[in-house]
């Protein structure tokens, strides 16, 4: 499957990926509305670090995801065909087990679990994810990787 890789050498801590992610996952998909008018949930990608060294932390869509294994309600699932790990907000009870199980800190809770859905042309559809598109320095790349 294709995954997003973060290259810390080129991450410049601008956080345009976060803006793009929050915008994409808002109702309007418009940055001004998402930030200023909607109570849109936070971005699912998070730039860690600061000026000197930073890295955009994102879900790895692991081959053997701990979040799926630990999910108590069956909300967190790995799609057997695409390999994309998503959480079903209808089923999620917000117990935070996935948050503590994830070795990358890539899940956060705002009532329900929120994480990267490898958005493409739409949620869970193939295509270049919005954070990758927004990165000015190819610090986020979307490339084929070995394990599914």
């Amino acid at each position, binding site marked *: 499957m294709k995954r997003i890789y973060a290259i810390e050498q080129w991450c410049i801590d601008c956080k345009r990926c976060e803006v793009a992610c929050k915008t994409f996952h808002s109702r309007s998909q418009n940055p001004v509305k*998402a930030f200023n008018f909607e109570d849109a949930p936070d971005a699912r990608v998070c730039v860690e670090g600061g000026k000197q060294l930073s890295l955009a932390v994102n879900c790895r869509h692991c081959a053997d995801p701990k979040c799926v294994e630990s999910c108590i309600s069956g909300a967190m699932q790995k799609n057997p065909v695409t390999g994309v790990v998503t959480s079903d907000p209808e089923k999620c009870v917000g117990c935070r087990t996935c948050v503590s199980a994830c070795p990358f800190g890539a899940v956060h809770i705002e009532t329900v679990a929120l994480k990267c859905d490898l958005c493409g042309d739409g949620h869970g559809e193939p295509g270049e994810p919005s954070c990758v598109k927004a990165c000015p320095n*190819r610090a986020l790349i979307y490339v084929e990787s070995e394990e599914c």
Partner: protein
Amino acid sequence: MLDYVLPRYKVLRDEDLCIQCGVCERSCANDVHKVDEDLGRVTADHAKCVNCQRCVVMCPTKALAIDKWPQVGNGTNNWTLAYMQDIAKQSQTGAVLLSSMGNPKPYPIYWDHLLLNASQVTNPSIDPLREPMETRVFLGGRPDVLKVNERTHAVESTLPPQIRLDVPVMFGAMSFGAISFNAQKALAMAATELGTFFNTGEGGLHKDLEQYGKNTIVQVASGRFGVDPHYLNAGAAIEIKIGQGAKPGIGGHLPGEKVNAEVSRTRMIPEGTDAISPAPHHDIYSIEDLRQLIFSLKEATRYTKPVAVKIAAVHNVAAIASGVARAGADIIVVDGFRGGTGAAPTRIRDNVGIPIELALAAVDQRLRDEGIRSTVSLVASGSIRSSADIVRAIALGADAVYIGSAALIALGCHQCQDCGSGKCNWGIATQRPELTRRLNPEIAAERVANLVRAWNHEIQEMIGGMGINSIDSLRGNRLMLRGVGLNEKELEILGVKYAGE
């Protein structure tokens, strides 16, 4: 002391579009923007803005634009706000004014007064998409007579060393120190891809760039930074820098704060020390001395590499170029007064030197009159802005051109003229790791290569329109140019006819 200097720019923020994401704040090394949570909006310290436009480009909602500071002048044409501000600065600091990039003053730009020819009826134009079109150029010396064995179809004369350019464009000298490693690497990668050359400037060649040696011109300048036999042999050609168009007659000064571990190793100077290039080469006080250096360098490289000499376009440039050719240079580079720089005294940059168009025409004519034009190659530089400028330069007599500013603009440079501060937000003219990281050489090389490839297509279209299928047939072909808005003397020096003649 109260600071009399006014801000130069005003940051315009469209509050309707601003989402307070802070991208501008994190993008600005000058600390202009600040997300003020108490005020609930983003504020700007206008006085710190240098108009590099990084924030304008980075803003996800395009909420930013930079305007001139609205203060009006006093209405005189003489004591303009700009001159008064310069006086305010100097009366505050007592220092020489420094500026970067090329001469911005409204001197005539002769390129814009030269129109290109095209064929109609009698001499059909050529479509470069259907027919072969040669843009390859060889730079280097030429033998006086070319002996060819007609039976074996072999060249019998020994040819002096030459370098082959697939496009008539090279990247001008910009040293590691003045520009970042990533910027120089991007130019090296682009030069390799395009089959042309980048120039190390006088900052030595970083060991990680030695792999691009086949596409490198190594420079030897008055400071001799980074020069040793290994360096001389690492490139494909050597350039002796006598002068630079932006600052003829003076040397260079890389401040110690830019001399970090890598720059220090590459330049072979202690870390943190100022790298000062003297105004003259202290071993060159005559054409004979220059000849000695040229042949020392040829000896050091076993006569396998052409040696170029770069001079600034100054009043006597034609006579100087003639001397340089006779001193044994294989390539003469003439750098016009609009050429860029990382830093130069403002008064020098703005007032010294002459336009490249006139200098180039004068040099080519002088070398032709003396019958030595064919022994050397001629490279023009100093603000080549488009493919049309390249066509004009070649028609005026250049073999190829150097681009510096144009290549940097492709990398993201917005000509804010603040290179000297070391806080280049585009990661070009800086050594700060958090800023140099902003320039991913992979992306940057693609951008520069795209630019040159596009220009090369345009050159082919333009010369094809003239009915010419090779750049060699355009060289010095001034009949392909006509002047507009020029006086008799200007036409005479340029060697072109007036439009309609």
